[in-house]
């Protein structure tokens, strides 16, 4: 037995010593943590303390019931903000990466112009992998470890819905750039703002278009994800309100290889419009297979390819089948660019060598708005930032952005719940490719009428 007493004692001593360390002033703790983060994130500078230390420390004390550390509010020369989005699979990491790049660009621009409240700004971007449980952890880390004063970004709705709960719990403001679910702003949380369209609004553009053209029988094949399910339900409900009841919604795994059997089934009684609301590989597979069967796009049956048709891979995967397909586009076509958009596009291409999509514009504007709100608020207090955001009128790459309803202007009963802290007019349009290999800028705008550059619907020639 004797042999083991010594090692045991050493281990116990070590444990006690480690435990004693935690009783040291919390500032030391924070420094250590931030160093850990410094390795992970692009930020290479070691951040020692931030203004928010005091706020966070009291929270830590409440929660962990540790010995109360002496935390002094310390002067800091940086303001930390957090970004989140998918940077690796199974998330859509192309979108996430663009968001991170755009947010970094916005932060650098602000720093070059003198920073915020006279201090430098740093962005710490967390990878959510497109998983709700990762989103929770990342948000928690950004808030409690990095002590960020505000958050921005996110691509996936399912992830945003869990991140939002964490931000709400800690009272940290978030300007969401891309998640569409109605429930994001529909939560009515003080902390949550969004500059992307809600599903309800986004879908209404397509359903109104369908009603306008006069199609009566439509079939949607939608992916069985958070995005696809909400979309399918919303479409069905909106079309019913517009008096179109012959609507069928079919669910499919986005990784489905072969849609042929179900397409053959649909071809038994061809609809006026067939929609493939699938992201990634399934989108092009379904379109190619419908086209090969001769089901759509044809003079009898139009084909709607959702949003994925705007990406450059679209033509590689569908070839000639992409001609006469129409789709929804969120973001600005070249004709609606303002000075800021021009500048953003040029700078982004110069800096990263790629052409940014609508997602990048949203992340860019969201980041700028968050920083402008901190400057406007004159402090990093959450309430002050929220109030500044509510009253802000900002001109960004996407145009004039403002939040119609908030504490300053309560949401009326007849507006949908998602209008809370929501930019009411993101640009959503229906486009149609009329030639093989067209870019989004070359495609014809067919709806809404005030922006249309072509006929409502041009059927493929017989």
């Amino acid at each position: 037995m004797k042999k083991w007493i010594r090692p045991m004692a050493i281990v116990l001593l070590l444990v006690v010593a480690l435990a004693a360390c935690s009783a040291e002033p919390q500032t030391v703790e924070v420094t250590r943590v931030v160093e850990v983060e410094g390795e992970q994130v692009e930020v290479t500078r070691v951040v020692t303390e931030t203004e928010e230390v005091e706020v966070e420390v009291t929270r830590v004390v409440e929660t962990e019931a540790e010995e109360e550390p002496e935390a002094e509010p310390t002067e800091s020369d940086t303001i930390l903000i957090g970004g989140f989005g998918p940077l690796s699979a199974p998330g859509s990491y192309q979108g996430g990466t663009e968001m991170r790049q755009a947010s970094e660009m916005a932060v650098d621009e602000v720093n070059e112009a003198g920073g915020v409240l006279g201090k430098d700004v740093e962005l710490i971007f967390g990878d959510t992998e497109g998983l709700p449980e990762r989103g929770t952890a990342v948000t928690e880390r950004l808030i409690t470890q990095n002590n960020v004063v505000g958050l921005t970004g996110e691509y996936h709705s399912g992830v945003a819905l869990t991140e939002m709960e964490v931000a709400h719990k800690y009272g940290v403001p978030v300007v969401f750039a891309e998640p569409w679910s109605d429930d994001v702003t529909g939560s009515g949380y003080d902390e949550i703002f969004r500059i992307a369209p809600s599903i309800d609004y986004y879908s209404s553009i397509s359903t109104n278009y369908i009603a306008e053209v006069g199609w009566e029988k439509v079939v949607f094949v939608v992916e069985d994800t958070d995005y696809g399910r909400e979309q399918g339900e919303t479409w069905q409900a909106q079309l019913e309100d517009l008096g179109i009841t012959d609507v069928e919604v079919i669910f499919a795994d986005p990784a489905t290889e072969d849609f042929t059997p179900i397409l053959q089934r649909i071809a038994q009684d061809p609809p006026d419009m067939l929609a493939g609301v699938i992201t990634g590989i399934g989108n092009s597979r379904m379109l190619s297979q419908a086209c090969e069967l001769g089901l759509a796009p044809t003079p009898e049956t139009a084909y709607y390819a959702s949003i994925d048709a705007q990406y450059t891979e679209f033509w590689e995967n569908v070839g000639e089948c992409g001609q006469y397909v129409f789709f929804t586009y969120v973001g600005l076509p070249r004709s609606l660019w303002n000075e800021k958009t021009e500048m953003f596009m040029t700078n982004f291409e110069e800096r990263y060598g790629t052409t940014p999509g609508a997602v990048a514009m949203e992340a860019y504007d969201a980041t700028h708005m968050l920083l402008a709100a901190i400057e406007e608020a004159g402090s990093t207090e959450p309430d002050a930032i929220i109030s500044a955001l509510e009253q802000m009128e900002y001109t960004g790459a996407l145009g004039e952005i403002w939040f119609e309803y908030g504490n300053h202007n309560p949401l009326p009963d007849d507006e949908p719940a998602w209008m809370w802290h929501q930019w009411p007019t993101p640009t959503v349009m229906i486009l149609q490719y009329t030639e093989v290999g067209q870019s989004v800028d070359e495609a014809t705008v067919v709806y809404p009428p005030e922006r249309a550059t072509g006929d409502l619907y041009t059927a493929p020639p017989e």
Partner: protein
Amino acid sequence: MDYFLSLLITGLILGIIYALMALGLTLIFSILNVINFAHGEFYMLGGYASYLILGVFTGIHPLLIVPISGLIVAGLGILFEIFFLRPMHEEQIARPAEYAVLVTFGLSFFLQNLALAQFGPYPHAPRPFFEGSVDLGVVNVSADRLTASVLSLLLLGALLLIINKTWLGKALRAVSQDKQAAAVVGINPNAMNTVAFALGVGLAAVAGALLAPVFSITPDVGAVPAIRSYIIIVLGGMGSLPGSILGGVVIGLVESFGAGYFPDPSRALNYKTVFGLLIFALVLLLRPRGFFGRKEV
């Protein structure tokens, strides 16, 4: 009736391609006594090989690339066989059956992550073999899909000829039946193992390259075909070449009719793959050796 016929035709066309992939798996199993759990990843590599080669040599007809992709992937298969599977047959590794399951599964984990890190999750497609569709009376089928199916059928036939009529085939069959006896008559079992593994994964790669223009490719594109192949080889009888061909066609038809006639259309596509599991369970319950399996299971 036209609807029934059209489902029958599209099911048959795909079933033949499924059979090609399952045949590779069976070939490996019958000679090496190993189930290749990385079979789907060799399928995926075949697709990427043809995509990448076509991206460089833009002037070549895409069909010429299919055998080249198969050969390249077969070469990778040879390397893997020599470094990771041969030691097992030389009795350098304890409990070879367990090792074989794990090391091929590990390879699949590695290759899938490698492809994801290298190529990203976005779908790519090589140029099509031929444009347009072919009218088969009751249904239009894309020229590429028909090409893939016809070529698969030819390959299946050629392979059965090789196995049954040539010296190589005899040697392979001899090794599959009795290694020691084969060694006595001068057949090197190690060489036959390597040949069988290269042939097997080469077939998966050819299937991948043939279907790449039809279905496009992503890093996880092999998962569904691989699981389908596992079901097919159990259905056909483990180790039986004719069994896996018949099994492939049956699964192709079941998927086609299943999705075509499933009562609730909104779920029909979702449940297409589930029919396979039901068949799997039924085979195990009622006839564990499948259509043409050897007696002991």
